[in-house]
């Protein structure tokens, strides 16, 4: 079935036309996470030349676990940023969740799955409170979450005790960040990802064809699938290389458990944003809240939900943080939120709302982690490290401000 519309869908033309359109969009300012990807390649090249350790499997695995907490936080924050709001309390929410996880297990003997659920629910509840204060009471999110940032630091001190440190000893929690999966799991993970990707893409094509609408050239799907498979094979094989310092004693190979966790969050969040009414409403409220309101969207409900999502992700990030450090201290999560905001913005999420994807946050998270990791390897003072990360954030925010202004005045 074909329709007689003279109006196009943007899917017409060949594979090459699609490529040309993409280049035109990039030239027109819709760069997405392309600058971050390029930056990543450049940074990786510089660091690899400066210190060959950078490219070793052990460092790559480190990089993944280093970035996981920030990336998880950044994905949650992306929802809030899409509304043009901010959540400065995400880091300390993660810290508080980590503390609850540690205490419920060590002091109350709660089983780890229940403790993990409690930690995540705590995050969700915090988000609900923040959301109510922002959406119903009408306090700017900057102020609400700054207040929460301070208050939760105090609460954390009370919970953990000054100078205190609560150890984590549940093996499954520790495994998330510190133990690789069996070799075969990496390959299974890759197969599952490819199946999900192909499945959703083909479902979309069938759905569109059923409404008589033009599909994108099949070549794009083939190209992307091949790229996914090639990159995936490279990724899994690299992580399956031996990276233990002393393989005869302890062998260390395989994809870390945290990788599928982050990927599930990424896939679920992306599905919600791109394929559901709620996701569409998030973009609408971020683009023009008044238009959304007049279209009958319940704007304050969207606001509250978005803060709940951010804080729920923060709760999960707290578990990752606790796993990596094998303990929780009174300052846990204090400094991490700015890295997470930087990650999202560097990846291409706009601070002005309405623009950005979760994958941007993941790519941005990598950039921030690579800077941190690479500068550490070069042996620069850690102060410089912070200054450079700050500079990169400012650069990304500048690019964001300029493109937003351009699209507003055109």
């Amino acid at each position, binding site marked *: 079935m074909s329709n007689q519309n*003279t109006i196009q869908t943007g899917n017409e033309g060949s594979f090459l036309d699609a490529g040309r359109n993409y280049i035109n969009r990039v030239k027109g300012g819709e760069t997405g996470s392309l600058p971050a990807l390029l930056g990543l390649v450049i940074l990786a090249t510089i660091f690899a030349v400066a210190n060959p350790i950078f490219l070793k499997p052990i460092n790559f695995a480190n990089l993944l676990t280093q970035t996981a907490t920030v990336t998880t936080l950044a994905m949650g924050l992306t929802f809030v940023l899409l509304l043009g709001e901010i959540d400065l309390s995400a880091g300390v929410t993660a810290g508080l969740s980590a503390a609850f996880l540690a205490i419920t297990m060590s002091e109350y003997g709660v089983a780890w799955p229940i403790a993990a659920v409690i930690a995540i629910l705590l995050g969700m509840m915090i988000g609900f409170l923040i959301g109510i204060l922002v959406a119903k009471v009408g306090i700017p999110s900057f102020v609400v979450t700054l207040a929460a940032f301070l208050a939760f630091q105090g609460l954390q001190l009370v919970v953990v005790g000054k100078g205190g440190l609560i150890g984590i000893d549940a093996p499954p929690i520790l495994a998330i960040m510190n133990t690789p999966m069996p070799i075969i799991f990496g390959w299974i993970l890759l197969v599952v990802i490819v199946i999900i990707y192909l499945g959703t893409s083909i479902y979309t094509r069938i*759905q569109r064809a*059923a409404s008589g609408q033009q599909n994108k050239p099949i070549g794009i799907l083939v190209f992307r699938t091949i790229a996914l498979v090639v990159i995936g094979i490279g990724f899994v094989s690299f992580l399956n290389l031996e990276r233990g310092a002393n393989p005869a004693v302890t062998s260390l190979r395989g994809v870390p458990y945290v990788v599928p966790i982050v990927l599930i969050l990424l896939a679920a969040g992306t599905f919600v944003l791109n394929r559901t009414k709620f996701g569409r409403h998030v973009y609408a409220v971020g683009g023009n809240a008044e238009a959304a309101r007049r279209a009958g969207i319940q704007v304050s409900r969207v606001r509250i939900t978005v803060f709940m999502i951010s804080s729920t992700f923060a709760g999960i990030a707290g578990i990752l943080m606790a796993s990596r450090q094998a303990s929780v201290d009174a300052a846990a999560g204090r400094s991490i939120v700015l890295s997470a905001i930087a990650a999202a913005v560097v990846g291409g999420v706009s601070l002005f709302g309405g623009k950005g994807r979760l994958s941007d946050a993941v790519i941005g998270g990598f950039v921030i982690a690579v800077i941190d990791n690479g500068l550490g390897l070069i042996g620069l003072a850690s102060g410089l490290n912070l200054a450079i990360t700050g500079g990169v954030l400012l650069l990304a925010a500048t690019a964001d401000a300029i493109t937003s202004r351009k699209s507003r005045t055109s």
Partner: protein
Amino acid sequence: MTNQTPVIELKNVKKSFGPVEVLRDVNFSVRAGEVTALVGDNGAGKSTLIKGLAGIQPYDQGTILFEGKPVELTNPRQSSEMGIDVVYQDLALCDNLDIVHNMFLGREEANAGILDEGHMESKAANTLTSLSVKTVKSVRQKVARLSGGQRQTVAIARAVLWNNKVVILDEPTAALGVAQTEQVLQLVRRLADAGKAVIIISHNLQDVFAVADRIYVLYLGKMTAAVKKSETNQADIVGYITGAKTQEMDA
């Protein structure tokens, strides 16, 4: 020309803000298949009259008849359920979304919770085609990339998509150039020809005379004239607007 019961009829509608009477015993009716123009000087009460119909700002007193039956319009949901849709002057589109997304905003179609993009896209394209819109190339363009006239077109098409009986346009051509004004006016005409009751607010009498069937004039909150376009001329209307002339009104 259609002459059945008006789709909307307002009788002795009043609205005050504190001591200020903004609408004073206003009578107003709109018919299907006609473009009804509402004109008047700044502050005459045009937007206030429209806000009452949109359910945003209910009238204090008076009767509202919808298709001959008395109704209440006290919130926006009620009027949109009755099929009254307002295209506001500031259009209220989301720049970061594309045309399809904007046309279905707040009323997205989904299958088992998953947005049915193909279906929405084809409906949007069909609506634009049925309005003979030629200025919009692709329904997947971001609204930020559209010209003023194209944006107006999208906003109007959105009202049409939902099969509304009454489409209210607040100054749809105010920001447009000559060519785009022409296109939007043609679109307005086509809406009426498709059987909808169209209300257009405009300060531009040339536009009003180009497109309207009937002209209502508000002067300081009173409806001072209700005339068929064929029975009047621009000079008379200017007289009514400035208060130099009045027509004895009866509903």
